[in-house]
């Protein structure tokens, strides 16, 4: 079992890192032929930095759009961030002081995650418009994330897991050693689903995470009159 999970995690990490790297390279290399920021837009690079920061930190556009989606989406994402940071303790020795400091918050954050996910999923059934646009994969993605959250919480609240052994397993993986992994069901489910999430990340709608950084309507500076913008393939037309 330990070997199987070790191989699974090496594979998942490879797919996640290589897949994302390829996608990011594709986005970065694809030219934007025209200036299309959604205006009013910042007129300087610094202004664009703040606009992007507000999108990333506050989900500004979503807030303007729909308060319920914003609330559930925000609960989920912030919860996920804190929970992920909390998990750094499994990969660092000694544990960084601030990771230690946020440990208790990570527990609350897991509830925020579950509430957010449940709310988003409920909307996929309750709101006619969102029901219409939902594919099986949209439901399954929420099921997957909920499964990860709930199996993780079960280890904390229901079936205590030998987390020291888990840490030894992952620190071992980072040094290319395979140590013994505990075999409680919630742990194996949790780790299996996380690996699955890592594998589908670069081939699914989770690409919104890198995508948001490359969205021309958000990241372009509104200065077309002052500075000529020209894509390489468009410059060829001028030859």
């Amino acid at each position, binding site marked *: 079992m330990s070997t199987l999970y070790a191989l699974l995690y090496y594979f998942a990490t490879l797919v996640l890192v290589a897949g994302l790297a390829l996608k990011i390279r594709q986005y970065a290399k*694809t030219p934007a032929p025209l200036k299309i920021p959604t205006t*009013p837009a910042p007129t300087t690079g610094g202004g664009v930095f703040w606009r992007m920061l507000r999108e990333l930190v506050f989900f500004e556009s979503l807030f303007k759009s729909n308060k319920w989606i914003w609330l559930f989406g925000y609960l989920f994402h912030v919860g996920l961030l804190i929970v992920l940071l909390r998990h750094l303790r499994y990969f660092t020795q000694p544990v960084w002081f601030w990771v230690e400091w946020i440990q208790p918050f990570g527990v609350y954050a897991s509830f925020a995650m579950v509430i957010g996910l449940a709310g988003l999923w409920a909307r996929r059934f309750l*709101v006619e418009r969102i029901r219409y646009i939902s594919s099986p994969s949209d439901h399954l993605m929420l099921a997957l994330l909920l499964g990860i959250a709930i199996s993780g919480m079960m280890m904390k609240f229901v079936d205590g897991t030998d987390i020291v052994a888990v840490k030894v397993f992952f620190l071992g993986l980072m040094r290319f050693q395979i140590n013994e992994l505990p075999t409680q069901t919630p742990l194996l489910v949790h780790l299996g689903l996380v690996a699955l999430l890592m594998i589908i990340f670069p081939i699914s709608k989770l690409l919104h995470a890198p995508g948001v950084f490359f969205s021309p309507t958000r990241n372009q500076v509104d200065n077309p009159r002052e500075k000529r913008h020209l894509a390489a393939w468009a410059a060829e037309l001028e030859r």
Partner: protein
Amino acid sequence: MAPLDDDSKKNDVRGPEGHPLEIPRLACGAMADLKSYPAHPAHQEALGFPGELIDNWKEVAIAKIGDLASKNRAFQVYLDACVKCGACTDKCHYFLGTGDPKNMPVARQDLLRSVYRRYYTFAGKNFPWLVGARDLTREVLDEWYNYYHQCSQCRRCSVFCPYGIDTAEISMAAREILDTVGVGQKYCNEIIAKVKDIGNNLGLNPKALRATLEDLEEDLEDETGISVRLPLDEKGADILLITPSADFFAEPHIDGLLGYAKVFHAAGVSWTLSSYASEAANFGMFIGSYENMREIALRIRKAAIELGVKRIVFGECGHAWRVAYSFLNTLAGPFDFLDQNYPIPQHILEFTYNEIQKGTLKFDKSRNDEFRMTYHDSCNVARGSRMGDMPGGQFEIPRAVLRAVCNNYFDMDRDTIMESTVCCGGGGGLLTDELMDLRTKGASPRMKALQQVTKDHGVTHMAAICAICKTQFSKVMPKFGYEMDSILSVHQLVSNAIILDGQESNPDGQASIKDQQEADDNSATAAEE
């Protein structure tokens, strides 16, 4: 905050006409059969596209998706990034007006995204049912044609998307793909062919244009008692005015043109129109064709060089201003031969606003007292361009000019103006008679917002700075209880109020400066009351 399922908004009816952004129940397939006329083979070919549907259309269309995704970052990222959160689902005026779910932005994107997934993604190639991927069939192609010609590319959805996904980019790409396999739209492609052939959307030749302008000069002299010129092809003029050709013949556009002429006259600048580049509109944008858009834009560069002007100013036209402000430098620049002390290009409202700031224009605001005004932000100006130095100048400058020339001005519901403005319903290449049902339904959010200010503030007229908006509103306003001339050009109001040096009479007869002061006093009193 609205309840979880948003259903209560359906009952939130303010007044008999309802809230402008009231969400309808889904009416599946309601607009599925609405199809605008396909382009004539001759027009297709004039634009460099096949005359009719080619035999290997499927392979070509699929390849074109990949080609566009490799040339346009927005298209590639927006095909990948959507999470189907639903934030955009109630943002399109065509959805609000028709209830057809395929007019929801995300669903409109998915018409193409589903095919992209089938041929370009791992999940779509192997598990199409899982991710909503589908084969490209003739039915899908027809669906693209119908629904991508039910999008006015107004970008309202892009304001509200957490990733800034812009349906206009998808819809432009879809039209480019359709053109590439030979099924373009008549309205857009016929007009582009005409611009390439004659120089403007109307097909107005230089002789007819000159005659029209001379007639208008006579009208101006009759009205003002002084000579106000509308110069054409005058070499050595300082300013080249590029304006939509609708300004030469349509109402209320033409009154706006007279307004520009009066402002230029009062400012004491020399200016000219060009018979070669007698069109501000650039429908190349609507069909997503960089090459066609560039070819049309280059006419302006050529005219500016040949006439030896120092500045380029654009008249009132929404998408033209997006192409001018955002794209002209890219498509037809660099404009190093023009005077760098002025914005290149400049909007006529920036020009007028600057003159007002300098104090060179004199107004009698009372001449517009018969109008109680509101202002419709045109989508392409609001969300695809700017005026002045500050972000949001495209909202402030037109309103500042309106307030300088009118006593009675009121804004509509904040959720329907500025960056959230709802489209007129006729933009993006949809201003054609066979789409009148869609145009009327798409205009309903704007019309309901107008009805609100009519009820609350007695608003009688709406001003706009877009040739398409003006034509569209003059057609659809009668369906909502307004006269067809309830839509005005901003420069028409400028024209009404402006007092030119040496002007002896005015449209109302004898209003003197003294009368104007009295009128100002009266309106001030009225405002206090």
